[in-house]
């Protein structure tokens, strides 16, 4: 039986797709058979971030409409054989998704996958609500910024009331906070909400802090999940997050400002 993870945020541009790609790759690299599904019908991007955009033949909507089988639509990652990508349709609109259709796909995937990562689109329309409907765990990606925090709280409300678990009166979805695009120096200057601020407002279990990093854009440009860039701070942050999710204890990093040497202090490197 698979564990279904939804990566959600409400607000756009906070790093949902980056996160979905990174954690799916992280879980697969550790030997767990993982599928990652793009729910952003009409605006698909996971294929680009995963670097498989040229290999897309069939998509999520094709499978729902029985125009292709699940196996035809799943793309096996070239770097990790435990990872499969199910792309979104680029031409249909979000109404092409149905609860029954998505439920059937997730049920079928559950048979031989360990983890299913659902990359939610921004907003609270059908794609977003369906991505979270069947979830067991929710990764709430939030930027340390007022509109993102507010939207995340809105998503928490939807998670607790409009999911399958809520409707069936089962144990609620486990919610985790992933604070992304974090700049400790800007927090210090009082320009950015701190980890504590955000945690106090959302009162969520913090799974990890992902620092603002050039490596994220570089990774996107090259179609490589940033977790594969093991030298980068963001890559390490995601590796920590995967480890913590799997139950390992890792102290939180990237919350404090990096200590600068005398030279960089004088000349202001970076």
């Amino acid at each position, binding site marked *: 039986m698979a564990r279904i993870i939804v990566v959600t945020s409400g607000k756009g541009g906070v790093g949902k797709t980056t996160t979905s790609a990174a954690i799916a790759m992280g879980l697969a690299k550790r030997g767990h058979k993982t599928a990652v599904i793009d729910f952003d019908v009409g605006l698909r991007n996971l294929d680009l971030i995963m670097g498989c955009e040229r290999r897309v033949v069939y998509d999520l909507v094709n499978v729902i409409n029985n125009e292709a089988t699940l196996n035809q639509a799943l793309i096996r990652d070239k770097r990790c054989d435990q990872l499969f990508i199910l792309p979104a349709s680029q031409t249909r609109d979000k109404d092409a998704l149905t609860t029954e259709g998505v439920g059937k796909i997730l049920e079928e995937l559950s048979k031989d996958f360990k983890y299913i990562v659902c990359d939610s689109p921004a907003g609270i329309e059908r794609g977003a609500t369906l991505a979270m409907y069947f979830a067991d765990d929710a990764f709430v990606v939030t930027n340390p910024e007022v509109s993102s925090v507010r939207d995340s709280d809105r998503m928490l409300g939807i998670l607790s009331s409009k999911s399958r678990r809520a409707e069936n009166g089962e144990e609620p979805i486990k919610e985790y906070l992933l604070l992304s695009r974090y700049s400790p120096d800007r927090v210090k200057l009082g320009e950015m*909400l701190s980890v504590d601020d955000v945690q106090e407002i959302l009162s969520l279990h913090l799974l990890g802090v992902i620092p603002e990093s050039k490596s994220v854009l570089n990774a996107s440009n090259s179609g490589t999940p940033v977790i594969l860039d093991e030298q980068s701070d963001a890559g390490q942050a995601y590796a920590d997050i995967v480890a913590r999710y799997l139950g390992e204890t890792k102290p939180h990093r990237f919350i404090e400002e990096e200590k600068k040497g005398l030279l960089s202090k004088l000349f202001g490197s970076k």
Partner: protein
Amino acid sequence: MSLLDYFRSSKTNTASLAKELQILVAHERASRNQPSYLPELQQELLAVIRKYVNVGQDAITVNFEQDGNQETLELNIVLPDER
């Protein structure tokens, strides 16, 4: 960090911003579980009361609270002082 920074005393803090955001979010959380007819109910009640007493737009507060299985609808109508 430049030397100038050491003399800049008015460091802004996000604590107050966070406090404000927390109040907003708490308010939205509370109204999330309310039945959707509440604003309309409030408007209609206001119209009825205005037939008899001249009250302002904010004379009525409608509060909905949920405590376990018990739901409470609390109406508070402030009448103007008699002159």
